[in-house]
């Protein structure tokens, strides 16, 4: 077991430093790049926080849908192949719900301010 602070805490500390202390010192194209860098660190922190839980739930759904076992990558590959062959489609019980949940979990990490995501999130409540 590794020591603490956790990767989430460390990443957040760097992001906060860049955001609060460095941003005011920089302008122009470098400021744009710095904003991208801070966004990346924020994304990494969100992923570290959520990935374990969302991957476990995704695997659970994939096992039920496909009736097979494997890593989350293998199962996604298998689902992609079955959709491509037409063996699974939106009429398949559970597919639409699975794709929606998986996609919402991705947006929560990738782009939580994306308008479509915010609209769909408000539907969940």
């Amino acid at each position, binding site marked *: 077991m590794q020591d603490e602070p956790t990767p989430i805490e460390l990443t957040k500390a760097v992001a906060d430093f860049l955001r609060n202390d460095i941003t005011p010192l920089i302008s122009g194209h470098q400021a744009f*790049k710095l904003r*991208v*860098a801070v*966004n*990346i660190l924020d*994304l990494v922190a969100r992923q570290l926080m959520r990935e374990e839980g969302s991957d476990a739930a995704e695997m659970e759904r994939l096992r039920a849908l496909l009736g097979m076992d494997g890593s989350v*990558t293998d199962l*996604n*590959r298998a*689902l*992609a*192949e079955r*959709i*491509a062959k*037409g063996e699974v*489609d*939106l009429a398949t019980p559970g597919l*639409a719900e699975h*794709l*929606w949940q*998986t*996609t*919402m979990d*991705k*947006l929560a990490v*990738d*782009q939580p301010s*994306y*308008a*479509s*995501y915010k*609209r*769909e999130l408000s*539907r969940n409540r």
Partner: protein
Amino acid sequence: MIEAELSRSVVRWCEGATGVTAAARLSGGASQETWRFDIEHPDGPIGAILRRSPRGYGAAPTRAAGLAAEARLMQLAYEAGVPSPRVMHVLTPDEDLGTGFIMQRVEGETIARKILRDDEFAAARPLLARQIGGVLARLHKLPQDKLPELRHMTAAKEIGEFERDYRSLNWPKPVFELALRWLRDHDPGPSDEETLVHGDFRNGNLIVGADGVRAVLDWELAHLGDPMEDLGWVCVNSWRFGELDKPVGGFGSREEMFAGYEAAGRKVDAARVKFWEVMGTLRWGIMCGGMMQRFREGPDHSMERAMIGRRASETEIDLLRLLAPRGE
């Protein structure tokens, strides 16, 4: 140092010109550059733009029409009254500037978020959806016998290319598979009429001023095909920049765009437009994957490119909203 070559060029074809100043690189990748500069002239400086592939980057990627075709299209558009910069000069090999062309600079804004938020464009915004319809109609009416050599595309051909691109990424995405199936099942077949298609007509590729659209840019993906493709692409959610309920570039409704299109004497096929919107959403998603691949494998190891890879999921949620919408 590009100023020296540009100066030698402009004095040859721009009467009275004495040289150039203020050359600055605007954007573009390794194979295509955009520069702004001013032509010095006794009557006052003339704002100009250079678009070029530097020497050694002559070969255009398969999908691009090529800079010579782009120059020809912009000139035709300008002559037909489609808002477009005036092409001033097509580069010749002895000028040592590579291949490309020089056009007159059109003042205005191209950054989509600014056009959608800044006060300066508040009066123009409600007019833009209808105006875009009119511009597209005029663009689709450009005389075909004057067009440069362009690729002929159909939905089936494009779906095939998307699938090949997507499979080459080795990036299994169930939502993209679903979209590919849907597209194959709903392909409306070749269009009754084939016209010029701009291929990348969207918020971000338009110069907008307080009076509305001033220029249509980036003709490099122009081809011949179903005119409804352009109407669908401009509605892809990625180009609404947060204005979810204003499908036409975040400016207004499909109905407004359709009215502008039909007022300019052309017919809309709304079902085809919807098909091309799904197609466009998947197209942008696969392009995001391409960015990820180039970030990993190519020389451009930039953070921006890496982050575009993480935007594919935006197109996945938009595809689900189109293909498997949840209840209101």
